Every structure is written in structure tokens, then in C-alpha cells.
């Protein structure tokens, strides 16, 4: 039942949105039905609660976190749930008639029910984490409600401000409640509420308290976090009535009440909570007096009354808490009624501006009467409910000593009451009484019962509680107070007349002074507006207005789009962190004996360093640096040869040349030199980072090479031949022991080629297409495209190279070589044809689909690996055997070779795809078409007619 109650509004929230298809009545009916059902459910539970039993329901949700979907209904929850649903129902009725046809009603009621559900969740939660969820949900749903009239800038801003303040407070509350839960050892409220001593003794009590109070104060609009509330008045009036009388802002007060047993009673609690409440009460009441907007006045009065309540809970005595509970109820009734009344005035007279209103009583007698009663209750005039709780409050205040000053509370409380009288009367008098005006924006008249009915119900309660408090509210208030104070509050007999007490004199003083203030209102008003008091809203606006550009400056400052900055950060961090880590623990230099360097090695080293230095020094001359870098690759391959790594040497050599060809192809269309851009300090910085990185990596290499190694490699030596069927251990590792690496590696290569294809396939479109079309060569070009000697020589080289490739491929498993190198050799040989005979000639004759080569290469490798599964062995398990054929002799067949074919095909496909694409880009840029001949040579002496060389346009 309890779950049903809590979930009904949330689940039913969709109902209005769906029902709107059947009209506005259906829509409101759906929302009302949901609320009414929930109210009914609550009613069935109420007797049990009033009988002193707490209704609980719990299902585990996230046990690991201690977040359980635990609900409980105690008197406090009952009272709040009743207000939420009861007033909610009235609001729904009212809103049905209040909203105009243009307003999307379905959405409105959906938001409203969401909000209602969230509020219910707060008051029913028996788990603080669950409560937090609902808490934040109220912030979110109220954001939607306040911003409902999205076309209005005030509504948008008000919604955001409310969300910022209450949402932010909610985050603080999260912190506070988590601490509380951790002190208590559980996030279940019922457990926490039993841990008063532990909590108050904990060193974390104060931080928890501060965080929780931040949450409560923001939600309850306590000074100085109050400023969002008046701006939330941009919401439709039913929303304001709902949020600011009984629900949203009361959530903060609810929290104070809920946690009262464990948090209250300390010096810190009293000083913070009671003082904040008192200040808020007086300050907001003062502001309210000078608000000309009806809703503004009510908003500040709400803040003031919230201060009132906060102060009562802050005083920390059970009796004060009881008064607080009572006033929660009273305030909800008269304030909701007044908001709805303000809505009626706005609706009927077309304005909420007090300066433009007056004398409406005769035109709208029903509304006027309701306003009169509710307003007098707010003013604390007997025999209405507002009077009783105000009296009791003054009574409590009179006994409260603040920092050894007994006068502070009574005086300020009386002042608050005075101001309350003044603004309440102002509402009544300046709207309904005084001279009737003839310049109302709309001709005012009493609304239909749909609009005055709901406030009338509330006003009836105002009167009923006022006249028979013990009967109407007594049992509930006592029960709730008992729940709030953990039974510390003695039940009291609520009565209208308490006898002649100091509070009565304070009350009388308040009424007298209040009337006096109102009589001098015009003068005071001028003074007030002349004072130019700081407006919290403007401060907030300014903060937001500075925050945005400031954050932009920060982010733009960090994120300036420079690759080099990112790179310095990366490399610098790696170097710094790596060194720091190295130095933070022990290190012993190794003692492995080195290999004496031969003079040839020293010469090679000199060549390497020279070439490297030349690249760095002349890197701005791009072509030149490509010549120098060739030497670096050459020396490294030579080092691999010298250091027993023939496979590496072969691979490095062939990769090197393809890379250089690629770069040359790209350089054709790129600028030929790099401008000098970086300033000396920047070059110095980069140099320093570079040297540090070099020292780091080189030093690490040195440190490792000079210590002995105990590696898993022995296993490879022992098993390469017997288990892998090859004598070239490196190749066996590649295609067998670590075939999965190779599998990934060829995919990288293939995908790189695909990426290149995708990049260049569209080069003819858009900006790059226009650039290519406008491209002119930036070097002087010789007229000859395909020199004869070169063409002839490469034709002989091609078959030779293919033979070499076949050889390298076939021997790879046992000797240096393998599919990758073989593939590259073939690719280089074909490339030679491209260079010598030209793209068109060679491409026509190649007739290969590079994509399919890549695809089938990967597929062959994968299928070879999968083949093992057929035989029940793991993926990539190899097999090999030796066969013997007459004449041919013994030979070996290994699945690894099949895998290697896949590698070779992928390599050829990838390299050819990349180079073919790159060549085509240059084709696009080319304006002259090279002569197309059968033999591809520009000058072919074999042709009958002497060839006339093409003329060079560039000369």
C-alpha cells in the first residue's frame, strides 16, 4: 500500500499526458484521479498511524550501497503526505480552470504529478539515500514547473535559479546525509534516528550538520539563499501556490523536523538554525512589505514564515518543535489560499501589481472574503489558525536566550510579527479595499467555482482550526510533534485562548505597530526604494554573467587547439612521472658485461648521429630532410644485421623505402619548406623536453642492457622447431607462438589502408577539390615523364624482384624472411613500375583489387586460425608435417605458411591501395596528361617516327 501510495503519482504522471488527447477535462480528471487515489490510500493508512504504529514497507534495491527502497509512514509523514496530496488535489482543480487554452495542460499535469510524487517520496522515505533521490527529483520537477511558461525570460531564469540553488543545496545535503549515515552505520532513517549520542559525539557532526543545513536552507529559501524563491513566481500561480505553501519549500523544514532528534539540541544547531530562521523571518517580512507584485509579496511572506518555522525548530526545545509542526499546517492552509487568490486577481483583473489594484471587494466579493480571512490568518489575527501558532511562537521566543542576550529573540520575533501584520493587511487593503478604480486591465468579477472553490476549502480549514484547534488539528499535531521529537514533546491542548501571557502583549504590540506601519506605507516605501539595497538576484546574475566568460577564458586558454601543447603535456608528463617513479624506489645498476664496439660500429654511430642532426637542423627544407632520414633507416637496418636480427633488418629496409616513397608522394602537393615559426624560448623549451626524453629512454635502455635477463624466451628456443616446425625462431614466434599479435598487426595495416582510401577517395570534392583544381606545380619540372633507361631496367627488375620475394616468403619459416617482407618486396617491385612507366600504364596492367587483397588476406589468416577449431584445438593452433614426393624430395607444409600468405596478401593490398590512392591525388592536380604509349616511354627509339618530346608548359 505504501509503495502504491509513493509510486502512484510518479507512475500516474504519464496519465495526463496521454489523456490530453481526450480533452482538458479528461486531462485534469486523470491527474485528479491519480491524486485522489493516492489520497484514498493515505486515508486507509492514517488510522493505523494515528494509533501510534509506523507503517513500513521495504524492498532491497542496492544492498551494496545500503540504498533500500524503504518507506515508512509516521505522523510527520502522514501530515506532509496529506498536505501534499490534499492541496495537490485542490491545485489540480484550480489549474484546470486557471490555465488557458494555449497552455499545454497535459505537460503541466505530468510535471505536477512528477513533483507530487517526488515530494511524497521525500516524506515517506525511510532511507536517506532514497530520500536524496526524491529530494533532487523535486528540484528537477520544480525546474520544469517554474519554467513552464518557457517563452517568458523570467520563467526560464527563475527556473534555472531555483534549480541552481536548490539543486546545489541538495548536493550538499548528499554529503551531509552520507556522513550521517556513515556515523550511524546505516542509511536507514529509523536506524539513524536512534543514534543521537553517537552522531553528536562524532567529530564529523559539525561538517554533517553544516552540509545538511545547507541543503535545508537552500530548499527552504533561508537567508542568504532566499533569492531564488521570488523569481520562481514566474511560474503559473497554481505552481506557486503548490510549491511555496505546502511542498517544495517545506521540504527543507521537513528535513529539519525529520532529523531533529539526532541533530537538534546542540549549541551549533541552535546558533545556526535559530539565528538563520530569525534573521530570515524579519528580513523577508520587511522586504515583503515593500513588494508591489502580489505574488512577490506572498513570496517574501513565505520566506518569512519559513524563517519562522526554521527558528522554531532551531530553538531545539520539544515545545518549539511542536509549535513548528502546528505552524507548518497553518501556513500551508492560509498561504495556499492566498496564492490561489492572487491567481484569481491576476486572472480576473489582469494584473498583480498592488499599485494598480484596489477596491475589488465589491467586484469580487467571494474572492475578497476568502482573501480577507486567509490574510488575517497570515497576519495572526484571532480567531484564525495563524493567530494560534504565532502566539505559541512568540511564547517560545520570549523564553529563548540568545548568546546571553534575553531580549534578542522576543524583540526580533515581535518585529517579525509586526511586519507580518503590516504586509498581510496591505494585501487585503490595497487589493480589495480603498477606492474602486476604472483602469483595471480587465473588468474584474468573481471567477467560477472552479477557481474559488479550492481556496474556499482551505479557508474553511483556516477557520476551523482557528476555532477548534484541539479538535481539528490537536491529535495530528501532537502525534507529529511526538514523532519529530522522538516522543520528547508532551502532548498539548491546542487552544485559541492562552490567557494573558507576555506573548499576548507581544501580539498586541505587533498588531498595533503593524497597522501603524501600513498607515505610513507610502513614506516608508519611498525610503525603502531609495536605499538601493543590494539585490541578491542581481548578485547572482552577475556571478553567472562572470562565470560564463571566465570559464570560457579558462577553457580556451587551456584548449587552444595547439597539437604541440598537447604533445608537450604528454611527453613532459611521461618524462617527469617516469623519472619521479624511477627515483622513488630502489635502483641498482646492472653488472652485465658489454660487447666491445668495433670501429665500424662507431662509424655507423657517427653516421646515424650526423644524419639525425642533419634532419633536425634542416627539417625546414623538407625534401632534404627526407634524404637524410634515409640514412637513419639504413644505419638502423645495419645495426640489426650486426646485432643478430636479420628479419628485423630485412623488414626495416623494405619498410623504409616504402615510407620514403609515401612521403615523397605526399610532399609533391605539400609546401616544400617549413617556415620558421617558433621563438627561441620555445625552441629551447622543446629542446629541453627532447633532451630529457632522450636521456630517459636512452638511460632506461642502458640500465636494462647492462643487467642480466631471465626471460621466457628459452621456451621458444626449445619449442620452435619441435613444436612450431620452423628453425627461424622469430618467424615461429610471429606466426605461431604469438600469431595473435601478427593477426592484429595485419589488421592494423589493412585498416590503415582503408582509412587512407576513405580519406583520399573524396579528395576531389569540396575545398580540397577546388585546391587541387587550382594547383600549379611549385617546382620546375622536366618535360620527360618516363625515362627510357629506367623503364627498360625496371622491366627486368620486376620479375627478378618477384623471384626474390617468392624466395624470401618460402624460406621465412626456417630462415630470415616471411610473408611480410615478401609482400613488401613485391609491392616495391610493382611500385618501381609505377614510378618508371607511370600510373596509368601500370595500373591498367596490374588489374588487382587492393580491397579484396586486404580482405582475403585477413580472411585467410583468420580462417587458418579457425581451422584449428575444427580439430578441437584452440584458435590459431598450428600444424605442420614433412612430406616426401618422388623427384622433388622432402618438403614441409605448415599451416603457419597459410597464415603467412594471409599476411603477404594484406601487405601487398595495403601498400598498393595506399600508393595508388596517393598517386591518384596527384593525377587530379595534374593539368597536362602524360603521353600514353604502348611502351610507356616518352622517348622510344623503336618507334618509326622520331618522337617529339612534349613541350613543357612551365618553362
Amino acid at each position: 500500500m505504501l509503495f502504491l501510495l509513493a509510486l502512484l503519482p510518479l507512475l500516474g504522471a504519464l496519465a495526463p499526458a496521454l489523456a490530453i488527447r481526450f480533452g482538458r477535462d479528461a486531462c485534469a480528471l486523470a491527474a485528479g484521479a491519480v491524486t485522489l487515489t493516492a489520497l484514498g490510500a493515505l486515508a486507509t493508512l492514517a488510522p493505523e498511524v494515528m494509533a501510534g504504529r509506523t507503517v513500513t514497507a521495504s524492498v532491497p534495491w542496492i544492498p551494496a550501497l545500503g540504498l533500500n527502497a524503504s518507506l515508512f509512514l509516521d505522523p510527520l509523514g502522514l501530515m506532509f503526505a496529506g498536505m501534499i496530496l490534499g492541496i495537490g488535489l485542490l491545485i489540480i482543480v484550480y489549474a484546470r480552470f486557471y490555465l488557458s487554452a494555449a497552455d499545454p495542460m497535459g505537460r503541466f499535469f505530468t510535471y505536477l504529478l512528477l513533483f507530487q510524487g517526488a515530494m511524497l517520496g521525500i516524506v515517506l522515505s525511510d532511507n536517506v539515500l532514497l530520500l536524496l533521490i526524491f529530494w533532487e527529483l523535486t528540484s528537477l520537477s520544480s525546474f520544469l514547473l517554474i519554467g513552464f511558461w518557457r517563452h517568458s525570460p523570467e520563467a526560464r531564469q527563475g527556473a534555472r535559479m531555483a534549480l541552481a540553488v536548490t539543486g546545489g543545496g541538495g548536493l550538499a545535503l548528499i554529503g551531509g546525509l552520507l556522513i550521517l549515515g556513515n556515523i550511524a552505520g546505516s542509511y536507514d532513517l529509523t536506524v539513524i534516528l536512534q543514534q543521537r549520542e553517537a552522531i553528536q559525539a562524532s567529530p564529523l557532526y559539525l561538517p554533517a550538520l553544516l552540509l545538511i543545513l545547507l541543503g535545508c536552507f537552500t530548499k527552504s529559501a533561508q537567508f542568504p539563499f532566499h533569492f531564488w524563491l521570488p523569481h520562481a513566481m514566474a511560474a503559473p500561480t497554481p505552481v506557486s501556490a503548490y510549491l511555496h505553501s505546502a511542498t517544495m519549500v517545506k521540504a527543507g523544514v521537513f528535513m529539519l523536523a525529520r532529523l531533529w532528534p539526532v541533530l537538534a539540541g546542540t549549541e551549533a544547531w541552535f546558533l545556526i538554525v535559530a539565528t538563520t530562521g530569525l534573521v530570515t523571518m524579519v528580513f523577508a517580512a520587511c522586504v515583503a512589505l515593500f513588494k508591489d507584485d502580489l505574488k512577490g509579496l506572498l513570496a517574501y511572506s513565505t520566506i518569512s514564515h519559513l524563517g519562522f518555522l526554521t527558528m522554531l525548530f532551531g530553538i531545539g526545545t520539544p515545545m518549539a518543535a511542536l509549535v513548528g509542526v502546528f505552524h507548518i499546517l497553518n501556513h500551508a492552509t492560509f498561504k495556499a489560499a492566498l496564492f490561489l487568490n492572487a491567481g484569481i486577481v491576476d486572472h480576473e483583473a489582469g494584473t498583480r501589481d498592488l499599485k494598480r489594484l484596489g477596491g475589488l471587494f465589491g467586484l469580487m466579493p467571494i474572492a475578497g472574503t476568502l482573501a480577507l480571512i486567509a490574510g488575517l490568518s497570515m497576519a495572526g489575527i484571532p480567531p484564525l489558525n495563524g493567530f494560534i501558532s504565532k502566539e505559541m511562537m512568540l511564547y517560545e521566543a520570549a523564553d529563548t536566550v540568545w548568546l546571553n542576550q534575553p531580549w534578542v529573540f522576543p524583540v526580533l520575533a515581535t518585529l517579525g510579527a509586526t511586519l507580518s501584520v503590516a504586509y498581510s493587511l496591505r494585501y487585503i487593503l490595497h487589493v480589495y479595499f480603498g477606492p474602486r478604480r476604472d483602469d483595471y486591465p480587465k473588468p474584474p468579477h468573481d471567477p467560477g467555482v472552479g477557481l474559488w472553490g479550492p481556496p474556499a476549502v482551505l479557508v474553511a480549514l483556516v477557520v476551523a482550526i482557528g476555532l477548534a484547534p484541539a479538535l481539528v488539528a490537536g491529535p495530528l499535531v501532537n502525534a507529529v510533534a511526538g514523532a519529530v521529537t522522538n516522543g520528547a514533546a508532551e502532548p498539548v491542548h491546542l487552544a485559541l485562548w492562552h490567557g494573558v501571557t507576555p506573548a499576548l502583549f507581544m501580539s498586541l504590540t505587533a498588531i498595533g505597530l503593524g497597522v501603524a506601519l501600513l498607515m505610513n506605507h507610502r513614506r516608508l516605501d519611498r525610503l525603502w526604494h531609495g536605499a538601493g539595497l543590494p539585490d541578491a538576484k542581481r548578485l547572482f546574475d552577475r556571478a553567472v554573467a562572470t562565470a560564463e566568460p571566465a570559464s570560457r577564458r579558462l577553457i580556451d586558454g587551456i584548449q587552444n587547439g595547439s597539437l604541440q601543447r598537447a604533445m608537450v603535456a604528454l611527453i613532459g608528463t611521461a618524462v617527469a612521472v617516469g623519472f619521479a617513479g624511477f627515483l622513488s624506489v630502489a635502483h641498482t645498476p646492472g653488472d652485465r658485461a658489454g660487447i666491445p664496439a668495433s670501429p665500424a660500429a662507431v662509424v655507423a654511430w657517427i653516421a646515424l648521429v650526423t644524419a639525425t642532426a642533419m634532419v633536425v637542423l634542416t627539417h625546414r627544407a623538407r625534401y632534404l630532410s627526407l634524404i637524410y632520414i634515409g640514412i637513419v633507416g639504413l644505419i638502423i637496418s645495419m645495426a640489426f644485421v650486426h646485432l643478430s636480427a636479420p628479419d628485423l633488418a630485412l623488414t626495416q629496409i623494405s619498410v623504409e623505402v616504402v615510407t620514403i616513397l609515401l612521403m615523397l608522394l605526399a610532399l609533391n602537393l605539400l609546401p616544400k619548406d617549413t617556415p620558421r615559426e617558433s621563438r627561441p624560448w620555445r625552441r629551447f623549451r622543446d629542446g629541453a623536453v627532447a633532451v630529457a626524453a632522450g636521456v630517459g629512454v636512452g638511460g632506461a635502455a642502458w640500465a636494462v642492457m647492462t643487467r642480466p635477463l631471465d626471460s621466457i624466451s628459452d621456451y621458444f628456443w626449445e619449442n620452435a622447431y619441435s613444436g612450431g616446425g620452423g628453425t627461424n625462431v622469430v618467424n615461429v614466434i610471429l606466426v605461431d607462438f604469438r600469431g595473435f599479435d601478427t593477426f592484429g598487426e595485419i589488421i592494423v595495416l589493412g585498416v590503415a589502408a582503408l582509412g587512407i582510401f576513405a580519406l583520399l577517395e573524396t579528395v576531389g570534392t569540396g575545398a580540397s577539390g577546388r585546391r587541387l583544381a587550382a594547383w600549379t606545380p611549385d617546382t620546375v619540372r622536366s618535360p620527360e615523364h618516363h625515362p627510357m633507361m629506367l623503364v627498360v631496367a625496371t622491366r627486368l627488375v620486376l620479375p627478378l624482384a618477384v623471384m626474390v620475394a617468392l624466395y624470401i616468403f618460402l624460406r621465412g619459416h626456417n630462415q630470415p624472411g616471411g610473408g611480410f617482407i615478401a609482400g613488401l618486396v613485391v609491392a616495391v617491385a610493382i611500385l618501381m613500375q609505377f614510378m618508371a612507366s607511370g600510373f596509368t600504364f601500370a595500373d591498367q596492367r596490374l588489374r588487382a583489387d587492393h580491397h579484396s587483397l586486404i580482405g582475403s588476406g585477413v580472411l585467410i589468416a583468420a580462417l587458418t586460425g579457425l581451422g584449428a577449431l575444427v580439430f578441437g584445438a584452440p584458435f590459431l593452433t598450428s600444424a605442420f608435417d614433412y612430406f616426401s614426393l618422388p623427384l622433388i624430395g622432402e618438403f614441409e607444409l605448415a599451416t603457419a605458411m597459410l597464415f603467412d600468405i594471409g599476411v603477404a596478401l594484406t601487405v601487398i593490398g595495403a601498400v598498393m591501395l595506399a600508393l595508388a590512392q596517393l598517386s591518384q591525388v596527384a593525377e587530379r592536380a595534374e593539368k597536362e596528361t602524360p603521353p600514353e604509349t604502348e611502351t610507356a616511354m616518352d622517348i622510344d627509339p623503336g618507334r618509326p617516327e622520331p618522337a617529339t618530346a612534349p613541350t613543357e608548359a612551365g618553362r
Partner: protein
Amino acid sequence: MNPAISFLVVAALIMPAVLGALGLLALRHRLAVSRMVSIAACAALVAIAAALTLHASGGTTESYALGNWRAPFGIVLVLDRLSAMMLLLTAVLALAVMIYAVVTGIDRKGWHFHPLFQFQLLGLNGAFLTGDLFNLFVFFEVLLIASYGLLLHGQGPARLKAGVQYVVINLVGSTLFLVGVGLLYGVTGTLNMADLAVKVAAAPPGDQGLIAAAALVLTVVFALKAALVPLHFWLPGAYAATTAAVAALFAIMTKVGAYSLIRTGTLIFGEDAGPLAFLTGPWMLPAALITTVIGFVGLFAARRLREMAAWSVVGSMGVLLSAVSVFRVEAMGPALYYVLHSTLAGAALFLVVDLIAKRRGEQGDALEAGPRFCQSELLSGLFFLAAIGIVGLPPLSGFIGKLLILDGVRAAPEAGWIWGTILITTLIGVLAFARAGSRIFWKSAAIEGEAPVRALRGRTGGVVVAGGLLAALAALAALGGPVTAYTDAAAAQLFDPQQYVDAVLGENGGGRR
């Protein structure tokens, strides 16, 4: 390993590879077939990953010796709770993204979307499954090269410029990866992660300096993928510039970095590593906190919705890594939960932003009001939910995730910093999204005019996918109990590296032969 499970483990890798290759061979010019195959493959991957996760939830760590060469000599695939979870997350995300790409026609904007996508999945799955550090490098490269292709899919100047940054910085990152792997091999003589754990724990004191340097260099590499400040520079531009589907898929890419940090941090440099135990945590934590701040401030500073989405990824990585870097079992479970959440939430936001931008015509995703656009009501709802998810407000999983993290780190000495950072940045996020939503939806509602874009491909399909991802966030929250039970168990498994070592190397841990 049970044959069915081993078959599924292999299938998770080979299916994308074979389909990628087939896509090149046979389906290059057949879009319709490619699409069907891709979606079916993603769905199959979800099923496979789900089965593996179910199996892993039992708590055994499974090891699969590729090529029948036992660890540490051959390469092994290892399935434990964490890797299974990452597979499932990847598969679910991939399915959503693929459907989105198909219904909105993103896959037609450039070449080879489908093969690249499959290869991307191969790389991701490989990275999550491998038990070998160098093989992890290889699969990093596979997923990176595929991501380069996908990132640049469709091209255009902004994408190309961002692509250059992304590619180059990751190439340098790969170089650093090799420095780290190489150094570890040079000192310990092994590459298998379980064996590394054994060797590092048994390393003589004199070797520790080099191992520490290697560990931190690797951390920098993984932190680069995870976009930890100051290594985040590449992310905002790249993610904001690429197509929505790709950006959504990339929500998992940063998690690969996080995964690697978690895996190496708990296994190789875990409790048993003596003075090297958890040595990366103190370096990561401040960076993670700053990342959180920068990410959320970036959210606030953004000028476009896509930038917001990109920064939100940075911010969420900060939150996630804050929890990771305390290296406590009670914080790791929450961190893993947050991995699930932040991946799906980030993806959802990218898709929602794309839906909005497509309907706003010229205005696109600029954070300024424009004329009303079609489906703006619906999209405002989706945006609201996505924002809630990203920022971490209830009722979606982001809130649960943050609660879990706050609760999980409480025993750490640095808890105050983490709490303060997470809570304050959440507020910044709230403000940023409130402002954005208000401008895009509410302010625009005041501007009359014809909807800039009327007819649209995949009008409902795209919305359904984005909604589905958001529903997944809700489900993640609603099923918080079982999910956290799983993530907590995964965390417990991570903090019991001996079990991993035993599973990979046999009971006598690390003995040869």
C-alpha cells in the same frame, strides 16, 4: 575452459574480424546487405557477451591459450568478471550505435563504415580479453587505427583538423606504450600479465626503479586514452568534430584507458607488488580531480552542444578515475558501475545532441536560440534525461553511480577532496545543462517560424535508439542491486590477483613447465 565458453570467447574476436574482411571482399558495394549483417553481428555480439557475462558472474577466471601455447609463453585470453562486463557494455553500445548509424544514414557519408566498425569492435574486444601486455598494445593499435577511420568518416575541415591531433597524439602514446612494455620485458623477461604480476612481486629491490618507471609510463599512456588532464587535449575537439554515431561509440574508447589502468593497477602493480603496490594511485588522483573540474567547467564553457557532450566525457572520466585511483576494493565496485553508466550516458547524449542538431538546420548544435524545430517537445524530454544522466541526478543511474562512488571512497584519506570535487562539479554541470536546455528548447519556443528541417531520414528510428540508451540508464538504476552485486564482485576479483594468476599460470603460479 568449457568448450562452449571458449568458443564464445573466440567468436567475440573472430566474428568482427571475419565480417570486417568479408565486408571488404564481398559487401563493399552492397549497403543494404552490409547493414543487415552489421546489425545482426552486433546483436549476436550482445548475445555472446551476455552469455560470457553470465558465465563470468560465477566467479571463475577462465584462461584460453591461443595457438595451444600455454601461458606465459603463448598469448592467452582471459575472461573474468571485468572483461566480460566490458564486452557486454561494448556490444550493447555497438548495437545501439550501429542501428543509429543505419537509420540516420551516417554509414553512407563516407567509405568503409561497416568494415571499420567491425574492426573497431575487434580491437575493443581484444583489448578487454587479452592477458598479454604486448598483445594489449596490438589491440590498442587495432582499435586506434579503426577509430581514426571512423573519426574521420565523412570528413570536412573541422573533423580533419581534429583528426590530425587525435591521430598524432595517439601515435606518440603508442610509442610510450612500447617504452613501458619494453622496459617491463627488459627487467622481468615476460609479457604475460599474470606472469608479470608474479615477476614484479618477486623483483629484486634493485630492479624496482625501472619497474616503477615502466609502470608510470604505462599509466601515462592509459591516462592519455582515458583523457586524464593534462593528457585530455585531444578529446574535446575530436569528439565534438566527428559524427554522432562515432562519438557515441567512442564513449567506450576512454573506458579502454580506464580498463587498462584498472587491470594493470590491480594485477601487475597490485597488493603483492611490495613498494610498487598501487604506486600509480597518488599520481592519478589529483589529475582525476582536476579532470573532473576541467570537464565540468568545459561543459559550462561550451559553445555548442557537441562540445558539451565531449566535455561531459572528460568530466565523467575524472569522476571515474577519482574512484579508481584510491585503489580500494570498496571504491572499485562503484567505479565499475560508473563505467557502465558513463559510457551509455555519454553515448546517449551524443545521439540526442545529433538528433537536435539535425532538426535545427543551419543553427545545428550551437548554444543559441533558433526557430522551433520538429519533434522539439520529444527531444527536450530526451535531452533533459540525457543531461540528468550525465550530471548524475536521479532517477537515472548517474545519481546512483555518484552515490556509490561517494560512499565507496569514504574511507580513503582523500575522501574529502573527492567528495568536494564531485559535488561541486555536479552543480556546475546542472547549471550548464540548465542553461543549454533553456536556450535550445525554451528560448527557441518563443521564436516563431517554420521548422528549419522538415523531412528527415530516420526521424523516429534515431529517437528510438537514443531513447533506448536512456532507458538503459534507467534500467541500470532500477537494477542497481544485481548490477552492483556484479560490479562489487568484479572489484573483489580484481583485488584478488592470485586467483587471476592461478587461472592463467596454473595453481603453482608462475612455475615454468
